[in-house]
């Protein structure tokens, strides 16, 4: 499935195959797969969006990758989930996987996602320039974000203190 990040389309380096060198496995197999991990093998997990982030705590240090499911673009659970995983210290690659639209790309980046995996049909309909342009359309946020934006509230204080 087409994969992109804030720089453009990118090649897939993971496989949904427990035997692969960079393997994405279903959430319910994560314990077993981590137990049988080969030296040097990288493990990622497909996380449904109805799992609480606490459930990943026991394993997250052993994981290099988490893909959070977006079954429908208007199901926003994944945004909270991603942000909470970042807040609880997950430092690997975070992917939004399924149906999200360019207009949500900035939100995904702000919540700590690195990349987005969409369907072939969607990639046809929404070419890469739409994805790359979307996050630049709103250049200010009232929230601190995981991708390094400082909230307007804080920037105002900084400006007032500098003055």
């Amino acid at each position, binding site marked *: 499935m087409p994969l992109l990040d804030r720089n453009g389309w990118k090649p897939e380096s993971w496989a949904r195959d427990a035997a692969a060198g960079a393997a994405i496995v279903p959430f319910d197999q994560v314990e077993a797969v981590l137990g049988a991990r080969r030296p040097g093998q990288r493990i990622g997990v497909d996380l449904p969006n109805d799992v*609480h982030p606490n459930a990943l705590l026991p394993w997250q240090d052993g994981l290099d990758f988490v893909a959070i499911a977006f079954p429908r*673009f*208007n*199901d*926003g*659970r994944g*945004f*909270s*989930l991603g*942000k*909470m995983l970042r*807040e*609880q210290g997950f430092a690997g690659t975070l992917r939004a996987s399924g149906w999200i*639209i360019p*207009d*949500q790309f*900035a*939100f*995904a980046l*702000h*919540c700590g996602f690195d990349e987005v995996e969409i369907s072939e049909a969607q990639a046809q*309909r*929404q*070419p890469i320039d*739409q994805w790359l342009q979307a996050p630049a*359309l*709103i*250049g*200010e*946020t*009232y*929230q*601190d*974000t995981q991708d390094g934006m400082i909230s*307007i*509230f*804080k*920037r*105002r*204080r900084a400006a*007032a203190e500098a003055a």
Partner: protein
Amino acid sequence: MYRYDEFDERVVRQRVAQFREQVGRRIDGSLTEEEFLPLRLMNGLYLQLHAYMLRVAIPYGTLDSRQMRQLALIADRYDRGYGHFTTRQNIQYNWPRLRDAPDILEMLADVQMHCIQTSGNCIRNVTADHFAGVAADEVEDPRPTAELIRQWSTLHPEFSFLPRKFKIAVTGSAEDRAAVAVHDIGIRIVRNAAGEVGYRIIVGGGLGRTPMIGKTVREFLPKDELLAYLEAIMRVYNLEGRRDNKFKARVKILVHELGAEAFIARVEEEYARLDGPSLNVDPAELARIAAYFAPPAFEALPEGSAVLDQAAARDPDLARFVRVNLYPHKMPGYTAVTVSLKPIGGPPGDATSDQMRALADIAERFSLDELRVTHIQNIVLPHVKLDEVPQVWAALVEAGLASANAGLVTDIIACPGMDYCSLATARSIPIAQEIAKRFADPDRQQLVGPLGIKISGCINACGHHHVGHIGILGLDKAGIENYQITLGGDPGNEASLGERLGPGIDAEQVPDAIERIVDTYLELRHADGESFIDTVRRVGLDPFKPVLQPKEPARAAA
């Protein structure tokens, strides 16, 4: 009033440009209609029965004359010369075209207004007491808090695709005029035993098909912890709110299904793990916002006004207006004037562009340039000198805006109903008009006293019928409009939901039934002028039940 700084300005301008670009991608097919839908809704654009409808945010109902004039200009240029003020302190235009929407947004941005999050499954426009900064019983003006929430919730990356819409209301007064108990989150500004100011947080109220009174989840939240605590509530809701059934997706259902205790436990657990200090704003920032709402430059005036007393003694219509439409101001010599948008026989909440301009002129000259929109769909001139009430009244008479019925039986809330709305199952506006005509006699209205009738044209309850002293719900029964009547609802301090009086009745029977309810009340009430709601609470529904029976012809002698 709050003024945008360069940051606020840029966000609103960028949002306009973004929407223009989104419309373009819808037209070229990049976005499907399904994908475009929430994007346009988050900019207040609905597809209604006959046309698009654009809902403009009036945060916490406060605006100045320049903004009101711009709303009038938009009504002339892009609508049919009028606008409709809503129960959420917004204004709606019923006839704009999709391709004009970005230009309208641009015109709004020119006067620091927008349509951001006036619809969609996100945190909606924040409402507040329309007598903020006026009422004597205020702990603190709720608008700085509401403005802080407006900014924090704007384009929130985590909470823009919630299970369902999310409404927040704030009041700073002992008497709740913002209906906080029937919002997703209601916030009351309170003082604790130590005299510190903070917030009581109420979650899970709401109307719609499953009306509920909200539960207090925090008795006292220190003021500077607000945003982090709201984030905790929103997170629990975003993750756990139901998404399998649109009608069970509001936070009230989650609170109800989990139970208040379990819901609170989840919120507190999330609150404990959040990084509060990174989320809460510096008190200096809240102080910056609050400074915009500092009391205006009131003059030192005596209590009362001989000028007004003499004018009212000469003119009984002015005297009536003064008795009914004035609200006491905390400053001596001032008053707040309610301008009723409920003329007898008119659609509740509508104002023409000429009326909007008249209101702007009056506000500029007589009310320190400020106007408020109330959730009862009226306008308030918050800071009028008592001495100048006769001039204000004369100007309102000229504009056709001097109905002396604020809070009375003809001050009816009604949703747009089947005349405009694609969700409606029955008409609302014509019902309101017919009832108002029955009580057109101003003496009779005043005899009846405070009585709130609220009408919804479908189960979604936009007309707040559940909390009407008399509530009317229009349904479709096998193709025929059928109206259920409830009594005993109240949105205020002792919030309560109305109870159904009996089986539904036909549209033509509604005005009769309402008249008979009012007549029954007048017979039952205590001589000390007991109000309608107090009487209903005392005697219950039984004495009112016969009114739903069709009037019987005179019985033959036994």
